[in-house]
């Protein structure tokens, strides 16, 4: 039951070409920079893992995190709600050149599709996007006089998550608003990989305070001094 791995390479080394990868974070808040960095490093050395589908709220900023993955050429498709940022160059260039695919999903629908996958619910109805371009081709039904659009679950092979505390059984807490999509992605991915600022023994997190129960987590690595994406951006860093 010890889910702790020795290092990031041991935790992420089996992510393959063509994998679908959920990455926690909303902008820089909750972005698992070190886990992403390990994938980029392996891709630069070996050419793998490439042709990835990346699921996140955004599509990267500057030359850090998901933007660096896109710049490296390892992302074939983004599934996101808002592919704009203060510096969206990496995604925008490739998108306008037709070199990256985009599936644009309203933010609440994106969250619920991920939650539904984690909860074993293949489809659900939402009022969001009814009558808009983003509902084209989707089944519509009427409930109590209002129209709703059918949306499907969104699964992934892997989730990469940044946590504050983890215990060895995989129970997690987060830092402030950094949790955003992470508890949902942890449920929806076949393999959930967590970087935690600190790993504690079982019992080291009060059960009343656990945000993500360990059943949703597969692998944990300690990253004691994680980088913060926004801070890196403001320093003009590249990854």
């Amino acid at each position, binding site marked *: 039951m010890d889910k702790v791995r020795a290092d990031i390479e041991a935790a992420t080394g089996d992510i393959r070409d063509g994998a679908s990868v959920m990455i926690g974070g909303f902008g820089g808040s909750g972005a698992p920079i070190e886990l992403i960095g390990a994938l980029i490093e392996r891709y630069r050395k070996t050419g793998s893992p490439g042709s990835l589908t990346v699921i996140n709220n955004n599509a990267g900023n500057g030359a850090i995190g998901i933007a660096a993955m896109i710049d490296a050429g390892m992302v074939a498709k983004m599934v996101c709600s808002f*592919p704009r940022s203060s510096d969206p160059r990496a995604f925008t260039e490739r*998108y306008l050149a037709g070199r990256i695919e985009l599936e644009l999903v309203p933010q609440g629908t994106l969250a619920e599709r991920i939650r539904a996958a984690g909860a074993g619910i293949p489809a659900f109805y939402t009022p969001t996007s009814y009558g*808009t371009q983003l509902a084209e081709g989707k089944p519509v039904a009427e409930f109590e006089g209002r129209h709703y659009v059918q949306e499907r679950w969104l699964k992934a092979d892997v989730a990469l998550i940044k946590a504050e505390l983890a215990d060895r059984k995989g129970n997690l807490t987060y830092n402030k608003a950094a949790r955003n999509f992470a508890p949902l992605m942890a449920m929806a991915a076949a393999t959930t990989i967590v970087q935690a600022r600190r790993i504690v023994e079982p019992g080291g997190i009060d059960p009343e305070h656990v945000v993500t129960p360990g059943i949703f987590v597969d692998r944990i690595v300690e990253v004691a001094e994680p980088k*913060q994406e926004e801070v890196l951006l403001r320093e003009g860093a590249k990854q």
Partner: protein
Amino acid sequence: MSAKLSNAQIAWRAAQDIPDGAYVNLGIGFPEMVAKFKPEGREVVYHTENGILGFGEAPPAGQEDWDLINAGKKPVTLKPGAAFFHHADSFAMVRGGHLDVAILGAFEIAENGDLANWSTGPGSVPAVGGAMDLVHGAKRVAVITDHVTKDGRPKLVKKCSLPLTGVGCVTRVYTSLAVVDIVDKRFVLREKLPGMSLEELQGLTGAKLVVDGGVKDLIVPEV
């Protein structure tokens, strides 16, 4: 009085209608300005889609915590009694009808309450964020906007020409010239600048302004 309200004055007018005790979501950008003009003595709890209820002003420069941001990815602070939650809970608050007021920006508003505010059409990178969820969430969905576009075309129209954010979702529009409710798929004029005749205002509006009951003077202090 000047010929039209400034953005700050539009925000001030919208803020006067937020009731004490309301849970409120303000859209990214211009709508965020509404918080500055919340009337004294009213308690308002602000929701941000990325997972905070009860956030406050920006921190002083140098004291930002970049894990504590709003939907516009700007740093915020917490009020006593704030709460964090994940994205599915956040949008349950939105779609589940738990918010009292959402205030959004607009490219176009149609007389039936259709809103276009997310895409200016092909040629750019499309980005929607939470706008399509928010328009179906709050009990009141208000829009703040200039009455006309930069080149003088009406933003209140019979039918939106740009891609829709939501169908029949807007309940009230605060513009630089007027306050307009949407009732039974019609624009009903509630307030207009005192210096402007109904005919002038109608000339700047792309659909019929219905007068149903009195029209008050839209009087806003210099802010």
